């Protein structure tokens, strides 16, 4: 297989990582209506907690990782209670900017306390074996990413479509007043959505860290691609996030391989603009009801 095929395959692997982060953004957006710019740094936070517990405190990785999940779930709830809930009726733009502020705050705090000596190599939690596919070595972690993506997409689709909690989560985002009138505890449900988004973020961090290496800014560039993927997929479609991610990954890697990074960025954002012109709600999206 030539460079084109190899680059495309590597793009699919990278695309699932973008898709996974996009998925966690969409997950929260579906439940709260807020595009969360903090998501990348929440992923970094969870990965750092697991790393510090494993490497500096000497805990077994099998214990450090679950504690990382726990801490990040809690962080998600704290961000919601401290940064989003107070005057939560301020509007989507206000809330989105709050997430941007939390993103900067979280970055500064992590950099202050954990930045010295970065980047760090995260301890191996999978064998370093790889499968050769068309001239590209696809690592076990990439295959795992695809597997986890499928599992998460199916699981959350089931939750959102076939459970009371999932339907209520969708309800508080789409028709918050109606949901409240029907007795939905919007605070509890929103906190749950932030908790779930935090947990998914740690999965993203752990799947990203072997290649990106652990640093306080490791998700910054991924976030841009993830938002592009989410917008391409439609912002409300969980499978759409992965499709968008793979599109971004393949276009990015193929164009990079032949024309370099500048052209790749140009191609991705041209694609995004064209998609939004042709399909304003993305490939799989539907009309978003704006909160008034």
């Amino acid at each position, binding site marked *: 297989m030539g460079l084109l095929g190899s680059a495309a395959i590597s793009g699919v692997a990278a695309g699932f990582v973008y898709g996974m982060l996009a998925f966690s953004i969409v997950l929260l957006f579906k439940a709260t209506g807020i595009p969360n710019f903090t998501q990348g740094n929440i992923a970094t936070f969870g990965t750092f907690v697991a790393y510090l517990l494993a490497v500096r405190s000497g805990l077994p990785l099998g214990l450090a990782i679950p504690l990382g999940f726990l801490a990040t779930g809690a962080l998600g709830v704290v961000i919601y209670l401290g940064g989003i809930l107070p005057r939560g009726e301020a509007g989507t733009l206000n809330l989105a900017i709050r997430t941007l502020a939390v993103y900067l705050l979280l970055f500064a705090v992590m*950099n202050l306390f954990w930045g010295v000596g*970065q980047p*760090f190599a995260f301890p191996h939690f999978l064998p370093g074996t790889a499968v050769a596919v068309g001239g590209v070595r696809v690592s076990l972690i990439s295959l795992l990413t695809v597997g986890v993506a499928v599992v998460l997409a199916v699981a959350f689709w089931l939750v959102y479509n076939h459970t009371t909690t999932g339907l209520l989560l969708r309800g508080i985002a789409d028709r918050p007043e109606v949901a409240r009138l029907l007795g939905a505890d919007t605070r509890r449900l929103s906190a749950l959505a932030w908790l779930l988004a935090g947990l998914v973020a740690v999965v993203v961090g752990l799947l990203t860290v072997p290649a990106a290496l652990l640093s306080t800014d490791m998700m910054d560039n991924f976030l841009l691609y993830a938002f592009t993927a989410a917008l391409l997929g439609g912002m409300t479609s969980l499978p759409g996030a992965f499709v968008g991610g793979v599109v971004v990954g393949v276009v990015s890697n193929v164009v990079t391989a032949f024309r370099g990074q500048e052209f790749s960025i140009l191609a991705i954002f041209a694609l995004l603009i064209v998609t939004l012109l042709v399909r304003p709600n993305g490939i799989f999206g539907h009309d978003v009801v704006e909160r008034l």
Partner: protein
Amino acid sequence: MERGRWLPAAAAALATLVIAACGGSASPSQTGGGATAPGVTSNAIQIGTTNAETGVVSASASLTQAGAQAVFAQVNASGGIYGRKIQQTVLDDAYTAPKAVANVRTFMSKPVFAVFGGYGTVPAEAIVPILQQAKIPYLFPYQGNPYPGDRYLFLVMPVYRDQTVTVIENALKRYGKGTVYALVGKTADTAQTVQEAIQATQKAGGTWLGYDQVSQGTTDYTPYVLRMKQMHPDFLFVSTDPTDCARYVTAVVAQGALPAKRILGLQTMADETFINAVPETADDMLYAPGPNAPASSQQAKQCIQIINKYAPGTRITMETLWGCGTAQLFVYALKKAGPNLTRDGLVKTLQAMHDASAASVFTPISYSSDNNVGERTMYEFTSKNKQLVSIGTMPVVSSSAA
């Protein structure tokens, strides 16, 4: 007194007072110095440092500052230099040009005698012209861009172009001739650096295969690795910031695309952070120049003792030792400049340095009126078992001579 005779006398008296207040004409005492220059008083030398205390390179930058601060604390504890304590004001530039410029404006109004240290090319690029115009010495920033003809700027480590030529020529000499492929970070100097690398490869009898150019923060290096892999190079030259260097090498290992002989880099690769971050399989494949001796060396012992005593708990890395070395070099120059300290006097003292063993972690330092880069040899590094190993020194090859 007649009006015509009283006025000139009063004006002269006033002028004397103003000059004295500005420190322009006070003479030093025999044992100590007076106010001989802006930022210099009888008991203090004010210096300013604009450093990335926060932001993407803060981890490394803060270590260089910690190393320097330990040396200044030691000097001050032993009475200072000719009775003057070094008072360092450190302002954060977050590795951004606007903040660095604002910091320098603050230093100029303070005023400071000199601007010392700092980390990275971005702040340095912004403040070099300002300091040059103000004729304020700018000493030993951790950066490798060339500024020929700047009389007030003094660097320690050779510029990136020279490091590029040096590492390629020495690698092909040490490990045998072969093919070279490169990945370079995008800077204003990239085209020139690549040109120098091509010439150095050809001069050393090697074959240049090509290069890729990347911007900081690339998310996936695999496409670049796939391009490189098709070429099967003997040497892979990597020149970008330390984090991206580590990410690229990690992708190279992941794709099983290690070069046949060595991975070459600049001083960013001769660094514990980089070595610790890259996979074990790349260990023993690295070859890079370093501006100072590593922590495991005999030459680093003095600095380590100072840092442990005056900045206990500070991590000892290549950057910490760099900071210590630059501060020792500064102190050495201040002593040589004598009690009657002036900016021009310091510049002349530095320009007169020839093979000075001013700091144990550096190779001998030389400057002249047409050379503002101190090191003429660099430490030669490889790695083994995740440890930086110094395997000697290599003479720096001037890029214009390549």
